């Protein structure tokens, strides 16, 4: 438990991605099974423990600590779990506690009934030192935040075991904590676990942006084009009665979209765009697609109400077919997969599934003309896919390109938040955001306020409060590191050089286009991208 607690504390304070990878890899080398597997599950949020409410912790502390001293301490420390961990009085006369293994703690806590929880938690707190108490409390209250995404944890595993991360992603959903078979494989003691469970996630193929000069070297006839829709990229997989909806990073988000799951009457895996539909418009008509703001109402939910599903039903616009029945189609050329996809979609409920239309073109400037006036607001660009290319996980250079409609759309990282005015005065609703410099630091590039729903506003407000690192009067600096922070998609009208700004440039009419909860800050844009826009 002490080794695990030390790992969490180091990860939380380590900004650099490579250093995090080394901390994780060294931990995987040192810690025995099943401890390391439970630690991995805690970091990827796959560890299921019965929840403990803050009220119970407060009650436990109140039995041992004067309420006034506790209040003064909590006020100073600012975090309940940390205050309890630090203030917890070890049994008098007890020496340094013996180390309890994480595996033993998890085994005990996972069988815990509600009635025995308080006494059991208290006994564990007695037996641990302060950093381990903190880790334990964060585990059982579900508040563990160490700035490591599930993907980064998998990358650490891959680097440590000398395999490709896609090999891990492909079997991930068939594995369960404490992952003994996974570690055995990565240590070379056993073969790779079979992806046995049904409806597994298949790592996604991604496109590169079109860079100046790229197209000059390519023959238009080699590529097919289709619209790039402003929804979220997902994978729907149905196998042997199991149906799953995955985000592009492999998170299972099925529970939020039962309306789509119900309509998945096929065997296979479809890659597509999740969009919200305007039910009053006919299937297939351009008016059918709702805005991203409407879709956002459905995102980031554990469950969904019938009313919300009725107000904002979702559908899938199919891009690609990765598997059909037992057959893996990923090695086939795009045109062959596309023909199979078209045939499959014909048999599905047209209200829930349609085929992403091909956009015919003969020359690149024809695509540019189409992009200048796309037929729908929810189109954010064109995808170009090489007709003979197989489906390759990752972002290979060459087979797929994305050509964005609005060149003035960047991903920036939230750096500072300030209270708003009027109706918004109780929220942190004015945001300063930045992009990465070549040296790997963030430089502010603009300021905008948030124009979405109250619910989104509350969520980002909570993010600001939970992640404040410093206060300057009404302004809060928030955590903004490569692996921890919030990415904002910023739309703007233009850029000009400016001597008044540290970044050397100023944005015209920046606005927050959407919140990218799904994107790690390290993937946000770089200053050089903006400088290139200046020309």
């Amino acid at each position, binding site marked *: 438990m002490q080794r695990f607690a030390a790992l969490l504390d180091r990860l939380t304070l380590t900004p650099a991605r490579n250093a995090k990878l080394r901390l994780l890899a060294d931990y995987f080398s040192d810690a025995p099974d099943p401890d390391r597997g439970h630690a991995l599950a805690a970091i990827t949020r796959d560890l299921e423990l019965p929840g403990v409410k803050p009220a119970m912790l407060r009650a436990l502390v109140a039995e041992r600590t004067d309420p006034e*001293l506790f209040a003064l301490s909590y006020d100073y420390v*600012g975090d309940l779990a940390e205050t309890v961990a630090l203030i917890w009085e070890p049994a008098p006369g007890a020496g340094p506690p013996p180390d309890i293994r994480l595996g033993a703690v998890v085994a005990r806590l996972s069988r815990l009934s509600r009635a025995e929880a308080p006494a059991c938690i208290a006994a564990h707190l007695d037996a641990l030192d302060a950093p381990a108490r903190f880790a334990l409390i964060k585990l059982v209250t579900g508040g563990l935040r160490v700035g490591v995404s599930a993907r980064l944890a998998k990358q650490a595993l891959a680097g440590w075991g000398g395999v490709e991360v896609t090999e891990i992603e492909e079997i991930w959903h068939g594995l369960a904590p404490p992952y003994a078979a996974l570690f055995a494989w990565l240590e070379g003691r056993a073969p790779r676990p079979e992806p046995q469970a049904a409806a597994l996630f298949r790592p996604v193929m991604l496109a590169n942006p079109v860079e100046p000069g790229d197209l000059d070297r390519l023959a238009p006839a080699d590529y097919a084009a289709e619209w790039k829709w402003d929804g979220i990229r997902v994978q729907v997989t149905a196998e042997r009665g199991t149906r799953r909806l995955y985000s592009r990073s492999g998170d299972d988000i099925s529970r939020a979209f039962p309306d789509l799951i119900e309509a998945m009457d096929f065997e296979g895996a479809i890659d597509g765009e999740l969009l919200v539909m305007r039910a009053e418009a006919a299937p297939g008509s351009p008016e059918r697609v709702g805005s991203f703001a409407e879709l956002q109402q459905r995102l980031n939910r554990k469950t969904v109400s019938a009313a919300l599903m009725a107000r904002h039903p979702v559908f899938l616009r199919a891009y690609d077919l990765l598997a059909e029945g037992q057959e893996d189609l990923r090695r086939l050329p795009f045109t062959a997969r596309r023909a199979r996809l078209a045939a499959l979609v014909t048999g599905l409920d047209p209200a829930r599934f349609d085929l992403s239309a091909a956009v015919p073109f003969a020359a690149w400037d024809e695509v540019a003309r189409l992009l200048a006036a796309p037929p729908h607001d929810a189109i954010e660009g064109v995808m170009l896919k090489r007709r003979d290319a197989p489906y390759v996980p990752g972002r290979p250079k060459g087979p797929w390109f994305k050509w964005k409609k609005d060149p003035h759309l960047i991903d920036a990282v939230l750096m500072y938040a300030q209270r708003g005015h009027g109706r918004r005065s109780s929220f942190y609703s004015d945001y300063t955001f930045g992009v990465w410099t070549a040296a790997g630091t963030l430089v502010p590039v603009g300021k905008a306020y948030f124009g979405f729903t109250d619910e989104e506003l509350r969520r980002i407000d909570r993010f600001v409060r939970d992640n404040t690192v410093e206060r300057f009067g009404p302004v809060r600096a928030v955590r903004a590191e490569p692996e921890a922070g919030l990415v904002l998609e910023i739309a703007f009208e233009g850029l000009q050089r400016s001597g008044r700004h540290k970044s050397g440039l100023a944005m015209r009419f920046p606005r927050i286009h959407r919140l990218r909860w799904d994107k790690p800050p390290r993937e946000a844009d770089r200053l050089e991208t903006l400088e290139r826009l200046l020309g």
Partner: protein
Amino acid sequence: MQPQDLLRPTPAGLYCPVGDFHIDPVRPVPRALVTHGHADHARPGHGAVLATRETLDIMGLRHGADHAGSTQAAGYGESLALGGVTVGFHPAGHVLGSAQIRVEAGGLRILVTGDYKRGPDPSCAPWEPVPADVLITEATFGLPVFRHPDPAAEIARLLASLAQFPERAHLVGVYALGKAQRLIALLRAAGYDRPIYIHGALARLCAYYESRGIALGPLESATVDRGTKGAFAGAVVLGPPSAFAAKWAQRFPDPLIAFASGWMQVRARARQRGVELPLVLSDHADWPGLTDTIAQLAPQEVWVTHGREEALVRWCGLAGIPARPLSLVGYEDEAE
């Protein structure tokens, strides 16, 4: 005699009307008794200063030989008459030369702890208990969340990080007086015998500690020239925390910022300062230290000076000991 006739809080600091002197005054006064050399306790410009030999030397190093009109050195445990008052200096275990000050008159004894700690420290004389009727205690870490861990364990964490990241320079923020030398001595005690690199701001005080017989091993100046950057891979570099925010730190290879301070026990403090490796190493008494001392010395009354007075006063109340906060201003939290 009532306690407040012997010592009372004034804007300049604690004042003794009978002996006509101040203790750790924050502004220039005719006669000052100084507990230790930290800048917020030992200020220049007094008429006469009475302090331990080491504290006087440190004041001279920091403020120049003419920091006071005249100086007088007091040995630990000696009794000196000042007007109608007897005073004495006793080891406080805080930094080299640090003292608790005993003030007695008319059968009444007050002990001013100054800054103190009870744990072992290879770089200064250990704290000694001095029973008194009135105890005037510091409260820098006066909250029950502060329980400072074993210093050897913190040093072990630093050494483990050096082994794990041997290509990174480990920059450890330390206050120039006390913390720097204690950290070096602890590293040496743990068997670390490579040169330790020190920022220019630490050099004079380290040399002074050496001259007082505290061996610090090989120390080298933390100056990075164009060709020498590589030499700092895996090195321990000590400097004042303020230097690490500046460009200075970026000259080192892939610097890993550590900070040795009692405040590092609270994670938000480490986060705010951008510290990657917090080392909980304090030269002040922690909560058990403060409360054990009060219980052990069993004073009639406790006055609490700088720090988190409220909680310690509350604890005294629960223990049935009359206590009050003095709310003295001018002593800084951060200078620990």
